[in-house]
């Protein structure tokens, strides 16, 4: 049984947002929802300033605080370590959103068009609305599911496939010889907020 994980190489990442867009289109998420997100940071003072992008997504924690707080059991962990929300068990209390230290969860009351209200939906938005309501849903918590449908089809997650810099590497953490395992070992991959004990499965390699 694989333990899916991701490595994001901050040295390669140049903050181009392709992953963010790929995720939005692959999951047809409405405005304001960013399962994949880019944060931009800056450190040092002029002229020794450096900027860096930090791609974030659901860390697929081994100890998911979102699941811990979920009163209904809607949030679950699959055998291959992916944290998912079972739509028809979720009552939309949004407690998991408060419990996720990585801001990875989103909930929308209703699917919204990207265009001004009062316009008929375009064929693409018709499709997006249907796809979102079926797969993710409204009035419930939603989050990155590591593109498990795509993984099942043997494809890579959309954000990984899209990354022009090959900064996102997806693979099996259980296999010590997988690219991700090796990268983490060789380049001392770090996780965000290790002190919180969520045990994220998304690792980062240093920017310089």
């Amino acid at each position, binding site marked *: 049984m694989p333990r899916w994980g991701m490595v994001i190489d901050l040295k390669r990442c140049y903050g181009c947002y392709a992953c963010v867009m*790929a995720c939005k289109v692959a999951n047809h998420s409405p405005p304001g929802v960013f399962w994949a997100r880019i944060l931009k940071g800056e450190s040092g003072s002029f002229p020794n300033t450096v900027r860096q992008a930090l791609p974030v997504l659901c860390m697929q924690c081994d100890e998911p605080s979102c699941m811990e707080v979920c009163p209904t059991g809607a949030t679950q962990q699959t055998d291959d370590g992916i944290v998912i929300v079972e739509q028809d068990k979720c009552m939309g209390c949004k407690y998991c959103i408060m419990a996720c230290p990585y801001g990875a969860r989103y909930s929308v009351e209703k699917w919204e068009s990207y265009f001004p209200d009062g316009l008929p939906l375009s064929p693409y938005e018709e499709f997006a609305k249907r796809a979102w309501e079926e797969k993710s849903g409204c009035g419930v918590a939603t989050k990155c599911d590591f593109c498990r449908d795509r993984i099942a089809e043997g494809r890579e997650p959309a954000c990984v496939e899209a990354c022009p810099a090959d900064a996102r590497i997806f693979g099996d953490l259980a296999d010590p010889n997988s690219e991700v395992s090796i990268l983490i070992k060789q380049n001392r991959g770090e996780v965000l907020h290790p002190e919180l004990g969520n045990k994220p499965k998304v690792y980062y390699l240093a920017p310089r």
Partner: protein
Amino acid sequence: MTAATQNRIEEDVWIPTCCGQCYCMCGIKVRRQNGVVTEIAGNPDAPSGRGHTCVKALASPHLLYDPYRVNYPLKRTNPEKGLGVDPKFVRISWEEALDTIVHKLEACREKDPRGAYFQATTTQASEIRFGVIGFMKGFGTPNYWVSGGGLHCGNGAHFMNGIMHAAWSIIPDFAHCNYALNFGCSKGHGAGHVAVQNATQAADARARGFKNIVFDPFQSAQASKGHEWVPIRVGTDGALALGLINSLLNEHGIYDAEYLMYKTNAPYLIRPSDGRYMRDKETNKPLVWDLVDNGPKAHNDPSVTRVEYEDVAHEVALLGSYPVDGVECRPAFDLLKEHVKKYTPEYVEQVTWVPAATVSRIAKEFGEAAEIGSTVTIQTSKGPKKIPKRPVATHFFRGTQGHVNSGWTCLSVDLVNHMVGAADTWGGAFGLGAAVGSGYEGTGKPYQIPYPCPDGLMVAKTWVYDHVPYPMRVPKPPTRLDLHDMFPTSIYNAFTITSPRWMELLERFKIPYKPDVMINFGSNSVMTMGNAEAVTENFLKQFNFIFSFQLYITEFEEAVADIVLPDACFLERYTPAVSFPSTFSHPQGEDDWGWSIRQPVVEPLYERRDFNVVMLDICKRLGILGKYYKGLNDSIGIRYGGEMDEKYKLVEDGSVEHSWEDVCDRMLKDRFGEEHGLEHVRQKGVFTWPKKKEDVYWKWFNPVRVPVYFEYFIDSGEQIAKLWDDFGGQDFFDLDWSRFKALADWYPCPTHTETKSEYDMHAFYWRAVMHCNSMTQQNPYLDEMSQEDPYVYAVQMHQDTAAEKGLSDGDHVWLENPEGHRVKGWVALTDGIEPHHLAIAAVAGHWGNYMPIAKGKGTFFNDLVEMDLPHTDPLTFNQDICVRVKIYKAN
């Protein structure tokens, strides 16, 4: 996708085609489910992108289905034109639209066909080569320009890179380069000509320890990923480059003698009297000094020439002074070496604000990293060959060239490469996109191997537009509305056509016709050329009739279009050649050649029609089909590497009517053989064939030399000046011809000489990855992405400067230039910008009512860009896009 949805899906296909939201031409795959485009991904078969795209491509379903797209022909019912005028567009039929258009064009042809003026957008560069060029030839007008005009990419950069690399631009050999100097371009970091492939290459390079030293006024993407960010004052790159050359030659004594001797005109002997080549009496060939035989030799005498690296030849003099026919002559290099002495590190610091120590340190690092003398052996089609290894490069583009010193600045930056022999060889600076190729073995096309002129200098075999950068055209009395014919060093010039005295100018230069009908394909020149008022009033309003192929009603159509034609977007049409002509946006390095096409993913929606199909229709109605076909045949011959075979030529007597698909099919069959027509290429969306190593690292396989001493500029300048004075041009503009000279120099911009102290900030422009010029802000996905980013819609300002001025983050401000033009924005405070600068992204700040998503987002920088002579480079007529402004709170 849940099972439920899958069941409902009868159709689910991926169609390979090519993106068209900027001119990088990345291969994409488009997913169509039940007739609806639902997803976009990269096309692994296409060398351009290799399975990757940028954020804009991924967002393009919204471009295809945007409810604000123009879907039907529109007619302006309000005769008044201008900014802020309501055009009162009404829907009309295609029949009515085409009747009116053809009628206007016929009337124009009666008067003088040259009254027709074609304006096109760069972003649809590949379509231009057909509908636009073919029509010009067919209809008989020389008047054309791509939008952006004076501050369009090309003026400085394309021209100069054409001279030095037979290419559009330059870029490091990312696969092998170890140390690069990036002068104001985003290559590999979001923009540029091959943005996505370069991004992958740049990331790989970073991973293996490649060092990119980035000169940029702010922490651009490339600066933040670079090994070192060196903040530089806008418009001063030329001074820095010449400083580096001085430091290399005169401080550290580093240069590649071998390269300079055999691959440049550095050894050419120069007459002291007039700075011209010393030529052989009989053959008139430029002379070099043979150090072995101790005497003058013709530049291409076998004893002193080395084509391949392993050839042997006598050394020739680069330094000293030698008597020829009793005249003491010095090699061009000797003059250059002395000439650059004035660019001392201290002087450079004064001008560029880059510390003197940094200048000489970087020169040293660059020189050492060049590993002059080192070689590698590559596998060519003629077996293993030894070539120089020079893993260093300078590269540059928009930021560097967008100034009144454009021409010389571009040359200066590239000359750094030529000092150490790092040009078009292993690890060095490549021409971008790959300019040299012997063609697909089946047909030998596209053939594009540069060859030497009689003086030994490089002539590009193919070029994207008619005039090849070298040999320089002879200035002719003008026939074009922008007087282009008399200015061989410029591609486009704006200061003529946007001058309030344009019409007078035409009379003075005896141009017997006036602007009449403008055909606009795409471009939004009201926003992309410079100050909108000047563009609209002085230029666009001079036309009697304007019709425009567009996706949206942009500020251009609102202001001046009489008829708007609903074009098909890149997802709805065929284009037979996209990544080629290869001097345009073509992948870099050893990966295969790839000839991409576009094919419709969905049939054009509503009443949209493909520009190129409509142009065929218009030409048919004008009865010029035959001539149009001839135009296409010629254009393909010139730009796509070889004449069309008779078998595939479009029938030029017009007896046969070729559909657009037929045109595409013939072109492909002609390039790649009968079996590789449209049907075949559609399967993968691209036709690929292996690149020969000697085409990648071509420098030491080709006899051409490139200039480091621009002797022929002198003649050209004298010719133009004479012509100009004969017409009394000086009554209009007092142009400074002194820049037509042989040796590079740096010249200050108005931003550097501004005296009014309240205009204390240097405002400049940068490209955000999610926007292409003015066209993408209407895409709600990309708009949202821009709002996610802390800087894209902002005016970036250093927090200390802001504190001094009592501004805080998010404050709304006015930026006002000395000419009194002002634009609004809000400031984002940061430490990542040189404290005297303000950075503004994208051609944003739309005000058009028909693009509500884009409206009011970002800052309309170009309103601050003046198009008058003081803001124009007298050598290339490139416009200045750095501006001095004062900044103050808006309330």
